[in-house]
């Protein structure tokens, strides 16, 4: 009896890091093109995991499955305790409020101003909010990324780095628990890339998010990730801390660090 009372807290302490995303035996193919083959993946609460892999290895497909934009052929995807593949539209929307997705191409709405872009998720998710609160949230989000002055501009008037920041602000405006970043620094110059990485790390800290960061930018991974998962041929090839992988002698791993 005495022993049992002691072991329960002990076990809880070990599993205190509950997974917010767990993927088991995920398969996804497009026609004859098998993209994900028996993929397994875990993201613990508060953790930032980078997913590394060649172009076309299915990284974007993986996170699109997580958010329910793509239906997997088989396998389980558990997000915040809910099985994504079995949810109906309404439940899926409720999960999506808590999971932010930063798109590879930013996906800012061309026909809307920056303000309207940021208001879009607020308005559309049936969130009870007054115009004043909404405006405050928009300005807060923009201040976070240092772009409060662009509020009435159109996305086309902004530079690539600014657009990435606006997209980041739009994703964070709902205060998500989980962030999915799809190549946040690709297509930016190294300096801007570093700024974005730092911003991601800062905001992750500030809002206490867990995140999946897809990237082949080593600087970005080093700044933002606690753990690195390497995807090769639709499977998790290996994983570890950045420094561990860097020292690896495996040629498949080494090629990313050159």
């Amino acid at each position, binding site marked *: 009896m005495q022993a049992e009372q002691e072991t329960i807290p002990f076990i809880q302490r070990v599993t205190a890091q509950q997974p917010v995303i767990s993927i088991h035996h995920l398969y996804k193919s497009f026609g004859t093109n098998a993209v994900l083959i028996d993929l397994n993946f875990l993201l613990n609460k508060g953790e930032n995991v980078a997913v590394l892999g060649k172009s076309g290895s299915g990284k974007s497909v993986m996170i699109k499955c997580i958010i329910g934009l793509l239906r997997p052929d088989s396998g389980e995807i558990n997000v915040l305790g809910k099985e994504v593949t079995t949810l109906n539209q309404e439940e899926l929307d409720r999960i999506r409020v808590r999971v932010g997705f930063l*798109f590879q191409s930013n996906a800012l709405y061309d026909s809307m101003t920056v303000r309207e872009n940021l208001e879009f998720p607020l308005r559309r*998710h049936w969130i009870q909010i007054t115009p004043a609160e909404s405006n405050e949230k928009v300005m807060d989000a923009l201040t976070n990324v240092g772009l409060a002055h662009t509020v009435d501009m159109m996305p086309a008037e902004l530079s690539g780095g600014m657009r990435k920041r606006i997209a980041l602000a739009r994703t964070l405006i709902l205060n998500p628990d989980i962030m999915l970043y799809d190549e946040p620094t690709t297509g930016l110059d190294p300096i801007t890339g570093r700024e974005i990485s730092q911003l991601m790390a800062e905001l992750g800290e500030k809002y206490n998010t867990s995140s999946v960061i897809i990237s082949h930018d080593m600087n970005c991974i080093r700044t933002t990730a606690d753990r690195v998962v390497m995807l090769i041929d639709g499977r998790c090839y290996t994983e570890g801390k950045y420094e561990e992988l860097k020292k690896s002698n495996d040629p498949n791993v080494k090629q990313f660090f050159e």
Partner: protein
Amino acid sequence: MVLSKTWQNFFRETGEMSRFTWRFFAHGFKPRYEFAEFFRQCFLIGYKSLPLIGLTGFILGLVLTLQLRPSLIDYGVESQLPAMVGIAIVREIGPVITALIFAGKIGSSIGAELGSMKVTEQIDAMEVSGTNPFKYLVVTRVLAATLMLPVLVILSDGISLYGSYLGVNIRGITSFNLFFKQVFDALSFSDLSPAFIKTFFFGFAVGMIGCYKGYNSQKGTEGVGRSANSAVVVSSLLIFIIDLVVVQVTDILGLN
């Protein structure tokens, strides 16, 4: 029998398009209704094409009148000019030309807009923001196109007839009232209704094809261009096919 690649593609496209259209009817009339976006699209679609359609309509009426006149004089029925031009414009030329211009202007812009939204992941972004992009983008645009084209055709017909009235007055003299009395005397209900009804189908076809092409755009700027282009080509072709079908149907119904 093995079908050639071209035919396979043709049947695949047709099947996909039918599925897309089915989706419109299956989802389009269930909540949540996107009224704000629908009215915005009505305004944009109607307003954007108004100057072009007005101008072409005017020229059309004028030119038709000037060209018909010598032939009618040859037959000695010059006085029938307003009646003939009226019937030609209201029954056939007005709806078809307006629809073709509408396809060029609106079909291509819908194709390009949705295409670029597709390739830059804006459609995905809408979906994760608690919005059904099919309803928000496709249903609103298709309905707006379906309802706005008939309005544009009526306006265009009116402007065409006015152009024709001016055309008559270049060589002869007719009063405004007499001209339009002659036109409306020549037109019967059975002239107007099929011509009016088919414009809804034209508008639907332009909206649907534009959205289909854009929504299924291939990656890259080239893909977007191709979507816009084939939206115009396919919807123009469809306009003629619908026109043909409507003629047959109204014939069978004895409306002609």
